[in-house]
């Protein structure tokens, strides 16, 4: 395992948000809210197009953070926070950057906080995703 300095960030990466990806996600969770499924219902509710559900943002991940090398096994997702700005809808292009924002150790555990910010094609903030990852391995 290797942990780079706090503040280290990934190069930007742009995700094209596909209607099919939103549909599969909505189906996998069994969601019924019509604006997640249907463009007309989405527009009637004030969205620009079929809208992505809140936790879909986890799929819009950043590129690897340089120098961050985590073990493949034994990672625990401890906490997750999302803050939302402009809705993410089908055919948006969301550019994300991930950043290591905090490293804490408690006994044998290491807690890493990773923050991913997504900006849409109009340069409007779409979301911030804050994930706390816990690992038992110590830094080598």
């Amino acid at each position, binding site marked *: 395992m290797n942990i780079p300095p706090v503040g280290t960030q990934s190069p930007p990466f742009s995700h094209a948000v596909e209607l099919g990806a939103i549909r599969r*996600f909505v189906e*996998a969770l069994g*969601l019924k*809210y019509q604006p997640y499924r249907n463009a007309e219902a989405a527009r009637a509710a*004030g969205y*620009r197009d079929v809208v992505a559900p809140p936790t879909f943002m986890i799929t819009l991940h950043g590129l690897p953070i340089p120098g961050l090398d985590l073990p493949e096994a*034994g990672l625990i997702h401890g906490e*997750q926070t999302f803050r*939302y700005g402009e809705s993410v809808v089908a055919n948006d292009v969301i550019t994300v950057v991930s950043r290591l924002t905090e490293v804490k150790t408690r006994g044998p555990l290491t807690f890493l906080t990773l923050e991913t910010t997504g900006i849409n094609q109009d340069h409007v903030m779409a979301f911030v995703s804050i994930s706390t990852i816990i690992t038992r391995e110590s830094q080598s």
Partner: protein
Amino acid sequence: MTSLVPVVHRVTRSDLVRYAGASEDFNPIHFDDDAARYYGLDGVIAHGMFTMGLVTRFLEPLLNQGYRVSEWSNRFRAMIPVNRTITIDGTIQESSQQRVILNIAVTLEDLPKPALTGTITLIRGLLIGGLATTN
């Protein structure tokens, strides 16, 4: 505001396979018992993000009233094994025409303490951060 209704759901292996495909999270501990045992688990467990995603179902009555999620924070407190029944429930911490704050909990059928707890803020209207961006 309509009252919130708990969501009860049995987590199946096919749920997890579908979620793995939809989220592109192919960690085998979520669909392969051998892999799960190799990593010290009794068997396959749900993705934390699958469970969090299911909570969206609990929010749907509010979404249908024009609210949308502006902030959502939760802690994953226990693993959820496959073939177990979970209950998603919540209490209203604050409620107005413009904003609802919920405390939510996901509990496993046979565990006294919740497997997931969190706070969700929903707001009504499409103006976020002063930006009107609907076309």
